[in-house]
C-alpha cells in the first residue's frame, strides 16, 4: 500500500541509474545509516565492538571482496584466508617498518599488495573453471599460510610465531591496540567499509561489473561479444583480493590485534567467507552484509539464548548451536536458494503488491 513506485517518475537516465531509485528505499537506507553512525556508537562497549560489530563489519568487507569474484565473476575461490593473511602481514610489515605511515595508507597499500598476489593466483582461472578452479585458490591458501608461518622475515623474526599490531592513531584517535576505544574502532571500520561498499556497488553496475557477470553467466558468449576473459577475470581477482586484503588488514590490525598465521588465516576462514556470500546472496553487495551478519551473529545469538536464556549446559548449547546453524542454512536455502538478498527482494515485491494479491 505504502511501498510503491507509482508516482515517482524518472525524467532522465541518471536518476534511473541512481543507487536507490525508489524514494522509500532511500529513506530506509538513510535511516539505517543514521542509526549506525549516530546511535550505535553510544552503545558500543568492548563486547559489542570485539564480539559483534567488528567481526560483522570486517567479514562483510571480506564477503564483498569474495562476492565480487565468486558472485559477480563466477570464479569460485577458497583462498580468502590466504589473501587475508597477505593483507594482514603486509599491514604488519608496513606498519612496523614505517611507523610514521598513516594507518589508512597502510590499509590501502596492504590491499594493493594483496591484489597483486591475487592476480598471480588468478592466472590459472583462464584455463580452469568451476570447482576445479577451487584447487588453484586452495593452493594459494595453503601455500601462503605456509609461507608466512615458515619465513621468519614476515614475522619480524619473532620467536613466538605470532604477529601483533602496535598502537596506531588516525587524526589523533587511537584505532588499534588494546587501548583503542571500542566506539573509535567501530566507527572507523563502519566508515571504511561503508565507503568501500559504495565503491563496489558502483563497480558492479558499470561496465566492469557487467563484463564480470557476463563471464559468470556464460564465458564463451562473453568472449564472442568482445569481452576479454583475461582482462575481466584478472581484474576480478585483483579487485576482489584488494578488498579481501583490506579486510585482512582490519581483521588483524583493528579487531584481533595479534594473529598466528595458521590459525587466524586457515582454510576455515576461506570457507566461512564463502558461506557468507552463498547464504547472503551471490552477486549482491547487500547480500554480503546479510550473509556476514548471519554467519557471525547467528552463533552468538543462539549461544547467548541457550546458555543465558535457557540455562543449557555450555557443551550441549554448543552442540545444538552447530546443529541449528546447519539446519538454518539448509532451511534458508530451501526457502530461497539465492540467499537473503533475494528473500529481501521478494519481500519488497510482495510489499509492492500488498494488500492486493496480484
Amino acid at each position: 500500500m505504502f511501498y510503491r513506485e507509482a508516482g515517482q517518475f524518472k525524467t532522465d537516465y541518471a536518476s534511473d541509474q541512481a543507487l536507490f531509485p525508489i524514494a522509500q528505499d532511500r529513506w530506509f537506507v538513510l535511516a539505517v545509516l543514521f542509526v549506525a553512525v549516530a546511535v550505535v556508537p553510544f552503545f558500543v562497549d568492548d563486547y559489542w565492538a570485539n564480539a559483534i560489530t567488528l567481526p560483522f563489519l570486517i567479514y562483510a568487507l571480506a564477503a564483498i571482496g569474495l562476492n565480487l569474484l565468486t558472485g559477480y565473476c563466477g570464479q569460485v575461490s577458497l583462498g580468502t584466508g590466504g589473501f587475508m593473511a597477505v593483507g594482514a602481514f603486509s599491514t604488519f610489515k608496513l606498519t612496523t617498518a614505517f611507523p610514521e605511515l598513516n594507518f589508512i595508507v597502510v590499509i590501502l597499500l596492504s590491499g594493493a599488495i594483496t591484489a597483486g598476489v591475487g592476480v598471480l593466483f588468478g592466472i590459472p582461472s583462464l584455463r580452469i573453471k568451476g570447482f576445479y578452479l577451487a584447487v588453484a585458490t586452495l593452493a594459494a591458501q595453503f601455500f601462503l599460510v605456509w609461507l608466512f608461518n615458515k619465513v621468519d622475515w614476515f614475522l619480524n623474526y619473532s620467536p613466538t610465531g605470532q604477529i601483533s599490531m602496535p598502537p596506531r592513531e588516525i587524526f589523533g584517535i587511537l584505532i588499534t591496540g588494546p587501548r583503542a576505544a571500542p566506539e573509535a574502532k567501530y566507527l572507523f571500520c563502519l566508515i571504511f567499509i561503508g565507503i568501500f561498499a559504495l565503491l563496489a556497488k558502483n563497480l558492479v553496475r558499470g561496465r566492469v561489473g557487467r563484463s564480470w557477470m557476463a563471464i559468470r553467466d556464460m564465458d564463451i558468449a562473453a568472449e564472442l561479444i568482445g569481452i576479454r576473459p583475461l582482462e575481466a577475470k584478472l581484474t576480478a581477482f585483483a579487485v576482489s583480493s584488494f578488498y579481501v586484503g583490506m579486510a585482512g588488514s582490519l581483521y588483524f590490525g583493528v579487531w584481533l590485534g595479534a594473529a598466528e598465521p595458521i590459525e587466524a588465516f586457515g582454510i576455515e576462514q576461506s570457507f566461512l567467507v564463502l558461506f557468507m556470500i552463498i547464504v547472503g546472496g551471490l552477486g549482491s553487495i547487500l547480500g554480503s552484509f546479510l550473509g556476514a551478519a548471519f554467519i557471525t551473529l547467528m552463533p552468538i545469538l543462539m549461544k547467548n539464548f541457550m546458555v543465558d536464556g535457557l540455562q543449557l549446559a555450555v557443551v550441549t548449547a554448543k552442540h545444538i548451536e552447530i546443529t541449528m546453524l546447519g539446519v538454518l542454512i539448509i532451511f534458508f536455502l530451501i526457502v530461497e536458494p539465492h540467499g537473503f538478498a533475494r528473500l529481501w527482494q521478494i519481500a519488497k515485491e510482495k510489499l509492492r503488491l500488498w494488500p492486493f494479491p496480484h
Partner: protein
Amino acid sequence: MEGDRKFGDPILEVQDINLSFGGVTALEGVSFDILNGEVRAIIGPNGAGKSSMLNVINGFYHPQQGQITYKGKTRRQMRPHHAASSGIARTFQNIALFKGMSTLDNIMTGRNTKMRKNLLWQALYLGPAKREELEHRDFVEHVIDFLEIQAIRKTPVGKLPYGMQKRVELGRALAAEPELLLLDEPMAGMNLEEKEDMCRFVLDVNDQFGTTIALIEHDMGVVMDISDRVVVLDYGKKIADGTPEEVRADQRVIEAYLGVTRDDN
C-alpha cells in the same frame, strides 16, 4: 526484387574452409563471400555445418585449413575479441544470454567494446565515468525502443519467454553497432506474427544502418522473402549458392533440404 538493391564489395570472404572435430567433418572446402550491405542466408539440413560456419567466422572454431578475408585483411582464423571489436556481432542458436542479468544490462554488454573509462573512475562513478555510462545507456535505450522491449527492461532475462530472449539477444548484437551481423536461427520458436516483426527488424537494420547480415534460418518463407543471396550447405559442403529463386529451383537443394513440397495436399 534485388534489382533495386545494390551491394558493394565483399565485406567477408571465406575460402576453402575445412573444419573437423576428431572424426567428424563439419566443413569441407567451403568458400563463399558476403557483400557489403546484403542479406545473406545460409541454409541446409540439420548438422550441415551452418552454425559451425558462423563459429569459424567469429573465431570460436579454428578451421584446420582455409582463409578468411574480412574488410580486406586476410587471415587464417579470427580471434573472438578481434572479431567483436572489428564489427562482427552475432546471435546464437541456443540462446546465449547472460541469464542472471537484466535485459538492459545484457544489451549494455554489447557496448562493452566501446567503453573506455577505467576501473577507478567506475568505482567512483563520477564525472567522466558517469557521463560515459549515460551516453551508452542512451544508445541502448534506442535499441530497446527499436525492438519494443521497453516493458522488460529490468527483468532478468532468464525469466523471459523464449521469443523475448531471442529479441534481447538481437538487441545485444545491435548495441555493438556491427558492420556484419551474424544471426543463427533468429526466428526459431516464434509464431508468424513474431517472425514478421523479426524480419522487419532485420530489414530495417539492414536498410537504416547498412549493416550486412548473414542469416541462418530454416523457415523457407523467411529465407525466400528477405535474403538477397543464399548459400546451401549439406554435410559440410557447399551445394548451391545464388539468389533465392535459383536455389529453390536447384535439384540438389530440393533433395537434400527442401524435400517434396506438399503445399498442395
